[in-house]
C-alpha cells in the first residue's frame, strides 16, 4: 500500500501529513474530531540520527496538546548503517525516539503504530515497537533479520531456513510471524476503510500495560516469555 | 547434538555442604557444568549434551578418570558442551567439584 493511498483511507476528514525525504510528519483529523499527531518513516528510508532527532522532536513538541493519539506510520529500512551515525551515538537517538513515544503513551497520548511496508532491527524498535498497539497492514513485510544474513551466520542454506520457518514463527521475516509473537496486535484489512478500523481500535484501546508477552503466549508464538517474566517478577517482589 | 549419560559408583561422598554449583560457559570449545548434590553418597551421575557428535568413547574415558580421581559421590553433573576438548572437560569437572566442596550456601 502506498503512503498516499493509506493516508487517504485513514483520514477522510483531512490531514496535512507530508513526506519529507522519508520522514513523515503532520496532523490529521479523526472521525471523533480528535487531532492526531502523525509521524513516521516512508519509502523504506533508513533511520539515522538525522531522522530520529526530527521524529522525537515532533513527539515531544506535541505533548502539551491534550489526549489525542499519536500515529506512527512505518515503511523503513533498518537503522542507518554508517560510520557517522554510529560515531555520533545512533543508539541514543533511536532510544530517545522510543522513549519519547513510550512516555507519550504512558502520559495520556495513546500511540498506535501502523506497519505498512518494510522495517527491521533498530528502526522497528525505535518506531513501531515503541507504540502501545502495533497494527499490521497486509502490505507489511517486517524482517528483524533477513534470511540471507541468517544463512551466512548460521551456515545453513536459505532453503533449510525456510523449511525450519514452517514449524516456528520465532526467527523468519514476515507479518504473520510477528503477529504470532505478539508484536503485531492486529492486522487490518486494506480493502475496507482504514478510518473505520482506526475508530474501532481507538474505541476499544487496551490499557497502556505491555501485554505483548501474554499475547504471544495466547497465539502460540512465545510460549515461555510471559511465564518467565512473571516468575522473576514475583520472586523479586518477595524481596521486600 | 548428542546426549550421553554415565552412571558410576563413587568411593565416597564428595566434601562440603553446598547444594549446587555451576562453572563454565557454553561457547565454542568450552562447556558449562552444573553440579547438584542430589544422589545417594556412593553414586555419581553425568548427563551430557554435546555439540560434538561421535566422541562417546572419549567422554567415557574422561568421565571414568574423573570419577576415579575425585570420587564425587552424591553428585549429579549436568553438562552443556560447545565442543570442548577433553582437557577442558576434565578441568571444568574438577572445578565444579572444587566449587561445590567450598563452604557456602
Amino acid at each position, binding site marked *: 500500500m502506498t503512503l498516499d493511498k493509506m493516508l487517504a483511507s485513514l483520514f477522510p476528514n483531512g490531514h496535512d501529513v507530508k513526506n519529507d525525504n522519508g520522514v513523515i510528519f503532520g496532523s490529521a483529523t479523526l472521525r471523533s474530531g480528535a487531532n492526531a499527531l502523525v509521524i513516521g518513516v516512508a519509502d523504506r528510508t533508513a533511520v539515522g540520527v538525522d531522522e530520529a532527532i526530527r521524529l522525537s522532536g515532533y513527539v515531544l513538541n506535541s505533548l502539551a496538546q491534550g489526549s489525542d493519539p499519536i500515529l506512527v506510520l512505518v515503511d523503513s529500512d533498518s537503522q542507518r548503517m554508517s560510520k557517522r551515525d554510529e560515531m555520533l551515538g545512533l543508539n541514543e537517538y533511536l532510544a530517545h525516539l522510543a522513549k519519547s513515544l513510550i512516555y507519550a503513551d504512558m502520559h495520556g497520548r495513546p500511540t498506535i503504530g501502523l506497519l505498512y511496508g518494510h522495517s527491521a532491527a533498530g528502526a522497528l524498535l525505535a518506531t513501531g515497537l515503541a507504540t502501545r498497539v502495533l497494527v499490521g497492514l497486509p502490505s507489511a513485510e517486517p524482517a528483524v533479520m533477513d534470511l540471507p544474513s541468517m544463512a551466512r551466520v548460521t551456515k545453513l542454506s536459505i532453503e533449510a531456513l525456510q523449511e525450519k520457518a514452517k514449524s516456528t514463527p520465532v526467527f523468519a521475516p514476515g507479518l504473520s510471524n510477528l503477529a504470532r509473537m505478539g508484536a503485531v496486535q492486529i492486522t487490518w484489512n486494506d480493502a475496507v476503510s482504514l478510518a473505520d478500523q482506526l475508530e474501532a481500535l481507538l474505541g476499544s484501546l487496551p490499557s497502556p500495560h505491555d501485554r505483548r508477552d501474554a499475547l504471544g503466549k495466547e497465539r502460540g508464538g512465545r510460549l515461555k516469555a510471559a511465564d518467565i517474566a512473571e516468575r522473576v517478577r514475583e520472586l523479586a517482589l518477595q524481596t521486600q | 547434538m548428542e546426549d550421553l549419560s554415565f552412571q558410576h559408583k563413587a568411593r565416597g561422598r564428595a566434601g562440603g555442604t553446598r547444594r549446587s554449583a555451576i562453572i563454565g560457559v557454553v561457547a565454542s570449545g568450552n562447556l558449562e557444568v552444573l553440579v547438584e548434590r542430589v544422589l545417594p553418597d556412593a553414586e555419581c551421575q553425568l548427563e551430557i549434551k554435546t555439540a*560434538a557428535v561421535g*566422541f562417546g*568413547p*572419549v567422554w567415557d*574415558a*574422561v568421565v571414568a578418570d574423573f570419577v576415579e580421581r575425585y570420587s564425587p559421590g552424591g553428585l549429579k553433573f549436568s553438562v552443556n558442551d560447545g*565442543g570442548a*576438548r*577433553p*582437557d*577442558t572437560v*576434565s*578441568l571444568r569437572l*574438577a*572445578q565444579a567439584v*572444587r566449587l561445590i566442596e567450598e563452604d557456602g550456601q
Partner: protein
Amino acid sequence: MLMSRNTETNGRTVTTWQHQRAARDARLEAGSRLARGKIVEAHDATRLMEAVIRPGDRVCLEGDNQKQADLLSTALLAVDLTEVNDLHMVQSGVVLPEHLDLFDRGVAKKLDYAYSGPQSARIAQMLFDGKIELGAIHTYLELFARYFIDLTPHVALIAAVSADREGNLFTGPNTEDTPTVVEATAFKDGVVIAQVNEIIEKVPRVDIPADRVHFIIKSDKPFFVEPLFTRDPAAITEGQILTAMLAIKGIYAPYGVQRLNHGIGFSTAAIELLLPTYGEKLGLKGKIASHFALNPHPALIPAIESGWVQQIHSFGSEVGMDDYIRARSDIYFTGPDGSLRSNRAFCQTAGLYACDMFIGSTLQIDLQGNSSTVTTSRIAGFGGAPNMGADARGRRHPSGPWLKAGAEADPDKSAFLRRGRKLVVQIGETFGDKNVPLFVEKLDALELAEKLNLDLAPIMIYGDDVTHIVTEEGVANLLLCRSDAEREQAIRGVAGYTEVGRGRDRNAVAQLRERGVIRRPEDLGINPLDADRSMLAARSIKDLVRWSGGLYAPPSKFRNW
C-alpha cells in the same frame, strides 16, 4: 653452469676465466639503459627485469618471514614470457600470492624454498598439479648454505627501507635474509636489485654497502610487513597456562636453561608471561631464560621489564616493537642509528650452536616422536624450527643443561667422551583446534610424501632429536627411555584422551611414572586447578603496552581501545 673456457682469438686459443663477470656486465649494461645512476623508476621495473634476467636463471625474490619485496614480485610477474621464462626461484619464503602466480604464468618453473606458511594450501595444490618442479624444501640455514654452493642466484630482488644515491641500503629492523642473499649474489657475479621505500641523502646506517647493489627502485608504498610474532595474551587458555607451568617447573628449572629459543605458539607465549609471576614465585629469576635467540616477542616484555632477560638476538623484528627495542638496547642488538639489527643467518646459527634448548609447538607427533606441521592439504615448509630443534653435532662447548641432558641419555658412558644433548622440547595440548589430536599413529607427512613421490617425508623435527614432550597431562622425558617400546609408552602416556593416549599400556606408563620418565602435574606439585589466567603477567595487549611504558605500539588489529 659449465661453459667453455676456451675462446679463439686470432687463431690462438686463449683460456678465459671471467665468463660470469662478462655476462654480469652485459646484464648491467642492458639494465643501465633504464637507470639514472642506479635508480630505476617503478614503472620501468618490469623492463628492468626483462633486461637483466635470462631464461632459466636462478632468481632469489626476497620473501622473508616479514619483509616482502612486493613491488619487485609484481614487476617480475608482468614480464614478457618470450624474454623471461622457466626461472628457478631460490627464496626462503613463499609468502605472497604473486610468488606462486609466477609458476601459474610460466615465468618460473622450479622452486627451492624453506617456508610457505601463508601459501601452504595453494602450494600443496600446485605441487599436486605438477605446476611447480620442486627442488627441495629446506631449513633457512640449509637454503642459505646452498646459496654459496649450488643454488647461487643470478639475480637477487631484495627489499630495504631506504637507499642513498650511491646505493647504500638501510634495511630497517627487519634485516633478516638480506645480507646473506646479497653476499651470495653480488660476490658471484650476480645482479642485485633493491626496492626501497625512500631514497634519501644519507641512510641511518649501512646494512648493505653500495658496491653490492646494482639497481634501486623506489616503491610507491612501503613494503608489506605482517605481525607474525604477536600473541594476544587475552587468547591464552587455562590449558596452555597449565602446560606452561609444567614446562617451567619440569624442564626449565631442573636443567637450569638460560640460553634458549622459543617457538611462536600460545604455549610458549604463556611461558613468557608466567616468568615474572610463577617463575618469580619458584625463585628462578637469574637461573633460567636469560639469553634468547628470538624475534622481539611482545609477550616477553613483562619478563624483560622484570629483569629476567639479559640479551636477545633476533632473526627479524616485529611490528610495533621498534621504539621499545630502541629504548632497551641493553637487551637487543641495535645499530648506530638505534634501531634493531636482525640477521636470520646469524640468529639461526646462534640458535643451533649457542642455545641449550628449543621449545615449540607442532601439529602432529607420532609414536617415535617425529613431528610435522604438514597436513595432507597444507605444506608450510620448515622455516627455522629444524635447526633450532636439532642437536648440533659440531658443538664442542659444554654447559650445564647440555651436559645433564647428555648424561641422562647415556649415563654409562665416560663423561669425558660423552656428547651433551640439546634440549628439544615439543609443547602442546593433546587436542588442537577443532579437536584435532596432536598425537597420531602415522604422520600426514608420510602420506604426502607418497602422493608427491618425495624422497623424504617432510619431518619438522626427527624423533631422535626430541628430548621432552609436554602436554597438559605431564612431561615425558624421552632421554630416559631405553628402548623404542619405552619411548612409545612415554609418548602415549602424555597423549591424554587421543586415540594414541587411550591406547597406552597402563602398567608400562605407571612404571615410567615411577622412574620419572613421565611426570604428572601432581608429581611436580602442580594442581591443575591453579592454572588460572590471573597468573599471567599481562592478560591483554593493553597490559603489554603498559608494561612497556607506552613504548610498544601494537598494530591496529590487536587493539581493543
